[in-house]
């Protein structure tokens, strides 16, 4: 075991995977000599060479399209999109091609592709370095969308994503990169794509979140326990597609109360799907209406500090809404 932050954990796991399997190549903008803008591929260029660590032209659709071709011919490409906000030109390649390849060929072709995408706000990234993109892709059958938020989960799920025969959107919350630390075993391990994880057990209400919001839920839950004696169960969704509704519903049936927290624009976000599942399957087990906290429906997160804070749900807000829900 050793304590690592999220970005170091991903770097080390990716390094070990590349060292063990020469079918793995990484490609993206600045992933070579620069080691990636977040240093996830630091040192890879010198160790694995330019054929495996590919600085691509500045063209996101081309990055994903080329990676799909590589995946169709025996390689295991890991494409890095520099910031989630820049992924939109690649939407067609991801949705029309990677996601639909297996279905449209009746299983004849598959695309074992991992797309690493740093996402999320709270880092003064302004309109175009703060976006949440998970809902666009979680809506598309044929794609798996994972959102690990701890070093352990990031490592384990990256290993699973690389071994997955289908395309995986591997979303890394930028704010967790250096802020969140945790123990990571030295020996290889996998965290399966799919199952959610109960990060904190509780009995009074269930908080369901992912990414940085999951950590804020843990913070709020700890305060509520200490100050009010309220017991909050926190579920880290970890995988948005396929969504582990069983774990969510089981917890909600136990506590009878649910709060869903996400920083994406509230409307039509991943939280809406989670709330819908609870409404469909666990309505009669609820003791209170489900609470949904999301980012406001404005086009993106502004640069100004007060405006950024106004956009993002924080631990105080989550704490207060949890308290209201517990007292309902």
């Amino acid at each position, binding site marked *: 075991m050793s304590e690592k932050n999220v970005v170091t954990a991903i770097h080390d796991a990716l390094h070990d995977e590349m060292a063990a399997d020469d079918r793995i190549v990484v490609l993206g903008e600045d992933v070579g000599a620069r080691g990636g803008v977040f240093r996830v591929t630091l040192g890879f260029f010198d160790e694995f060479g330019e054929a495996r660590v590919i600085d691509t*032209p500045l*063209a996101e659709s081309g990055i994903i399209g080329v990676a799909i071709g590589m995946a169709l011919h025996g390689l295991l490409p890991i494409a890095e999109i520099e910031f989630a906000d820049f992924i939109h030109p690649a939407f067609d390649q991801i949705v029309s091609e990677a996601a639909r390849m297996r279905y449209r*060929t009746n299983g*004849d072709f598959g695309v074992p592709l991992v797309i690493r995408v740093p996402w999320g706000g709270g880092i003064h990234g302004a309109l175009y370095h703060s976006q949440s993109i998970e809902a666009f892709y979680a809506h598309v059958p044929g794609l798996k969308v994972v959102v690990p938020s701890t070093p352990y989960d990031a490592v384990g799920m990256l290993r699973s994503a690389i071994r997955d025969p289908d395309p995986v959107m591997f979303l890394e919350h930028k704010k967790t990169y250096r802020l969140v630390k945790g123990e990571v075993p030295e020996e290889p391990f996998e965290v399966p794509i799919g199952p959610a994880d109960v990060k904190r057990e509780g009995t009074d209400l269930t908080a369901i979140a992912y990414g940085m919001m999951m950590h804020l839920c843990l913070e709020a839950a700890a305060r509520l326990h200490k100050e009010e004696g309220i017991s909050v169960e926190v579920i880290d969704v970890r995988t948005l597609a396929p969504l582990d509704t069983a774990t969510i519903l089981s917890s909600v049936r136990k506590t009878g109360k649910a709060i869903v927290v996400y920083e994406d624009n509230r409307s039509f976000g991943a939280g809406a799907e989670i709330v819908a599942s609870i409404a469909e399957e666990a309505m009669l087990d609820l003791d209170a209406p489900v609470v949904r906290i999301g980012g406001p429906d404005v086009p993106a997160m502004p640069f100004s500090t007060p405006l950024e804070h106004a956009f993002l749900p924080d631990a105080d807000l989550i704490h207060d809404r949890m308290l209201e829900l517990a007292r309902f």
Partner: protein
Amino acid sequence: LPYYRDLGVVLVAGMTPEEVFLGLFAKASDPTSAGRQMPAHWGSRRLGIMSHSSPIGTQIPHAAGIAYAVKYRAEDAVVACWFGEGATSEGDWHEGLNFAGIHELPVIFVCENNHYAISVTQSKQMAVEDVASRAEGYGFPGVVVDGNDPISCYAAMKTAVERARAGAGPTLIEAKTYRFQPHTSDDDDRSYRSREEVDEAKRHDPIIRFGAELKRLGIAEDAGLETLAAEVKADVDAQIDAAWNAPDPDPDTLLRHVFAEDA
């Protein structure tokens, strides 16, 4: 990597007329997709025909990626990728050729320039005379050939394959041709081109021209060509009947193959 005009490419690659019609009739045994894709969207791992979709030009970066894998794995293979002149307006076309040029990949880009993207003429698609001239921007040769002359096409392709095999990188071949039919059965091409133009183009039909050339060279005679055409027609008719009588897909297959099933 053919596109939807490339019936000839997939037949040469080994797909049978029956298999083509199994796709056209959306039958369960359609080797392309078991009745999922609309007609003319062929694919087959067995035959090395990569699957393609309906959005235009998305297969171009795939060709570059496959060629990258071929080079990375040091295989003696060459990738060929077909598209129309309309596709050259897409960003993916530029991104794919650019990547292929940078890495000097073993890939051949073949533009079948039939002068119309559905109804839009080449002059509204680009400001240059020849698609081939764009190759200069990617650092590899672009050549123009008479797309209605099989021998010219063969020669250009042979040169390009040799160049790719030698590690010298991609080639862009522009084959100038014509689309005798409307875009689809739903298209009425009288709204955008004259009958005179179509009739004139048909005088250069490559099948008729090639037949005449074979006769000129003393390789074939009228009687032989007519017999051949009759045999081919009878064979294809029989294969169409077989495809027509094949079973439809079971509705229960709708939910299959979203993800790998043995995972």
